[in-house]
């Protein structure tokens, strides 16, 4: 049984302070943090990157590196203060009374050991069961986490399983000795939305069955809405607000929580200005990209990453392409931008078809389609000033340095950055600012089509809201055609006029965003919408305090 004493909290953190090494942006990773987790409840720690939520989770398990020492406070696990416990004592407790699951199941599992063996290790270390009993216990816990075909999974290596299966293995490993506390550090962030829904459901189910306490770290308020009983909001290492989930979500008191929660885009499609009779800027016809397998002695199997895709983007309008990983949405974007070459089909830009043009003829069309990428930290050459990155494009097409610089300065203002910052290097800007610079770089080419390839996926939710607003403004002001690639349905609901849903390379549903979201026809679309966490909650609609 997980915990016998239902009155005492499983985890009681009091005034916990964790120091950062000198030269960081603040002295403490976490400062005087207080919270409890009781048996049978799920507590979420929510915050943006750098808020210290992960550090706190690792501190409970005693997994922090020496550079991040616990300098104050106590951590009571079932009444025992483990904040400064010996390494031996912590080892005894890990996986026995408290367990942790991590964000990336692929890298969190040892690639050279079978899944069964990795869980067996836990049993070998902490119990004296004989081999057959151990195997039975492992098969049992696999069944408990709804794993199909447990004996096969036992003998499989991590790379042979899907993301969802790997996470189930991790959960099984964490639960096999029935701990009282489960710490989950963003366990679903790296998973597809449908898989995420399954894992969240699993965690809820198991927690109900076993009655354990769960400390769930996340940045996603939708997840908080779906599973948390209580939630605590962290900002820069401090806990600004904590309480029952519904209270916090509907009546947040602290200005930071208010700002954060209202930044979450709504699932309800926004009212969009209509652009009747706008001309068609971009159209694909039967766009297909096939990756072939094969070679000497190898099995041939080809993958249709994009299969017969037909989409249209009109001037001044934004088309969203949504789908999970492997759906082909990024492939379509990259084919249109000719970063990869399509296998077949047409990409019409006005009168011209750029799909299969050879490189030297393609060059003059390049300026008409521009793309903003996902990772702001890798989208700018770290050795060149941002000014040089922005003027590179226009100068390729004959603009003089003076003209290009003038254009760059104007664009910096458009994206609300200081024009004098043009001679700084990328590392001197934050992630959100870098993404704005990338938008400026794209606009410097005066394109007809702007593609945003998961352009806000790597940004914190408050930063994301600002960048989305900016993109929407730019589209309206410059009358651009925008193609928005995203896996996040909320983003699509807020900034897209039309949306195409893709599954395994094919477009399964296509239409105005209100139609697709409110009256989905295809089963996959319905499944996607049903899986979105917190879909029924209206974030930002606060009740009077």
């Amino acid at each position, binding site marked *: 049984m997980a915990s016998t004493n239902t009155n005492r909290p499983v985890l009681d953190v009091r005034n916990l302070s964790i120091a950062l090494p000198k030269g960081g942006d603040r002295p403490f990773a976490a400062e005087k943090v207080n919270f409890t987790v009781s048996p049978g409840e799920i507590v979420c720690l929510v915050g943006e990157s*750098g808020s210290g939520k992960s550090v706190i989770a690792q501190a409970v398990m005693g997994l922090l590196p020496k550079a991040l020492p616990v300098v104050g406070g106590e951590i009571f696990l079932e009444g025992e203060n483990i904040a400064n416990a010996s390494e031996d004592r912590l080892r005894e407790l890990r996986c026995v009374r408290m367990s942790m699951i991590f964000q990336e199941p692929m890298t969190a599992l040892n690639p050279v050991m079978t899944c069964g063996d990795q869980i067996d290790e836990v049993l070998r270390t902490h119990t004296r069961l004989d081999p057959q009993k151990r195997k039975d216990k492992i098969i049992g816990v696999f069944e408990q986490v709804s794993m199909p075909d447990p004996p096969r999974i036992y003998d499989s290596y991590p790379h042979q399983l899907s993301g969802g299966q790997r996470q189930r293995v991790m959960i099984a490993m964490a639960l096999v000795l029935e701990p009282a506390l489960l710490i989950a550090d963003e366990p679903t962030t790296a998973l597809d939305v449908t898989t995420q829904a399954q894992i969240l459901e699993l965690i809820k189910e198991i927690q109900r069955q076993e009655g354990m306490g769960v400390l769930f770290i996340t940045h996603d308020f939708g997840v908080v809405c779906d599973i948390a009983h209580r939630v605590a909001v962290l*900002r820069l290492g401090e806990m600004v607000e904590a309480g029952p989930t519904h209270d916090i979500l509907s009546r947040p008191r602290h200005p930071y929580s208010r700002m954060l929660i209202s930044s979450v885009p709504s699932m309800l499609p926004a009212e969009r200005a209509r652009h009747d009779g706008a001309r068609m800027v971009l159209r694909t016809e039967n766009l297909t990209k096939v990756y072939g397998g094969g070679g000497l002695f190898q099995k041939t199997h080809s993958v249709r990453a994009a299969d017969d895709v037909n989409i249209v983007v009109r001037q001044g309008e934004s088309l969203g392409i949504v789908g999970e990983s492997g759906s082909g949405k990024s492939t379509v974007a990259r084919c249109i931008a*000719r970063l990869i070459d399509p296998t077949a089909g047409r990409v019409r830009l006005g009168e011209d078809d750029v799909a299969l043009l050879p490189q030297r003829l393609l060059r003059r069309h390049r300026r008409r389609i521009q793309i903003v990428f996902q990772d702001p930290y890798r989208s700018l050459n770290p050795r060149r000033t941002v000014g040089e990155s922005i003027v590179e494009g226009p100068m390729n097409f004959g603009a003089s340095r003076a003209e290009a610089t003038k254009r760059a300065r104007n664009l910096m203002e458009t994206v609300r950055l200081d024009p004098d910052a043009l001679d700084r290097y990328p590392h001197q800007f934050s992630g959100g600012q870098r993404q704005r610079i990338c938008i400026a770089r794209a606009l410097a080419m005066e394109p007809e089509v702007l593609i945003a390839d998961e352009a806000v996926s790597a940004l914190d939710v408050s930063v994301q809201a600002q960048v989305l607003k900016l993109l929407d403004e730019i589209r309206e002001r410059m009358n651009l055609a925008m193609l928005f690639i995203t896996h996040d349905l909320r983003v699509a609901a807020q900034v897209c006029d039309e949306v195409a849903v893709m599954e395994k390379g094919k477009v399964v549903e296509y239409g105005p965003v209100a139609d697709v979201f409110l009256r989905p026809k295809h089963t996959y679309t319905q499944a996607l919408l049903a899986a979105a966490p917190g879909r029924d909650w209206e974030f930002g609609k606060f009740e009077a305090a």
Partner: protein
Amino acid sequence: MSIVLENEVDAAAARAAAVARPSIWIRLLRHPSVLIGGCIVLVMMLIGICAPLLGTIPPAQIDPTTRNKRPGVEITVRQDDGSTVQRTVLMGTDSLGRDIYSRVLYGARVSLIVGFSVAALSIAIGVLIGLLSGYIRWLDGIVMRIMDGLMAIPGILLAIGLVSLFRAGLATVIFAIVVPEIPRVVRLVRSVVLTIREEPYVEAAISVGTPLHKILWRHVMPNTVAPVIVQGTFICASAVLAEAALSFLGIGIPTDTPTWGNIMAEGRQFFRVYPHNIFFPAIFLTITVLAVNMLGDGLRDTLDPKMSKRV
């Protein structure tokens, strides 16, 4: 400064990011390995350049009357005009009466010339081939097969084979040592190119219409500078050792031009009785190679700590 900041986390990150790092030269000089290694190499270079001014006699000068003298002994030298002069042989003389001290100091010249020119040549050629091979797919296949083939022949054997083709001499030795080092540089540069090629900022450059040669020059090549410099110092060290090995085996540079390697080679016969023949050049050789290796380690730690795993 009127930059609009999205939120406080972003502000904190921007603040941290805006702090300028100390310049690269200062960082380099602060690293003990770079400082020590660099100084020693500089000293050796100066010794080689200034050899005539450091109390040496012509290194090839044979004197049968002063054969096999031990270090520190005073000898009498008969001048051309009949007069005699007393001199202390700091490092002894060899079996032909040549002054080891002079030979060792002049030896620095050739050994270092070999080291530097091999490093420079193999880098220049390797970077060119690596850049092109990494970016042009059809070229890559052919080039890598050739590189694999070259790497299949152990370096010293390749050098021996190449030396056997031509007459012994400085150019031959340099050529024979450069060829086996090229594949390693090509591999390194190619792997950097393959990684950088996938970076979003390179894709961005493509989509704003930057032509291939500018992409290679502006975006790809600067990333190769740091690893190549580090690799270059290690090649220099290995080239100095290779020249010594070749000379030791008797197939290096002919002995009228002293190198640390051939001084030791000549001293083999009398090693048991007169170890000073080997001892002194060995010290200079070891210190120099050690210094170059230390320099390389320090450069690697400063220029790109992430590289430490590969090299």
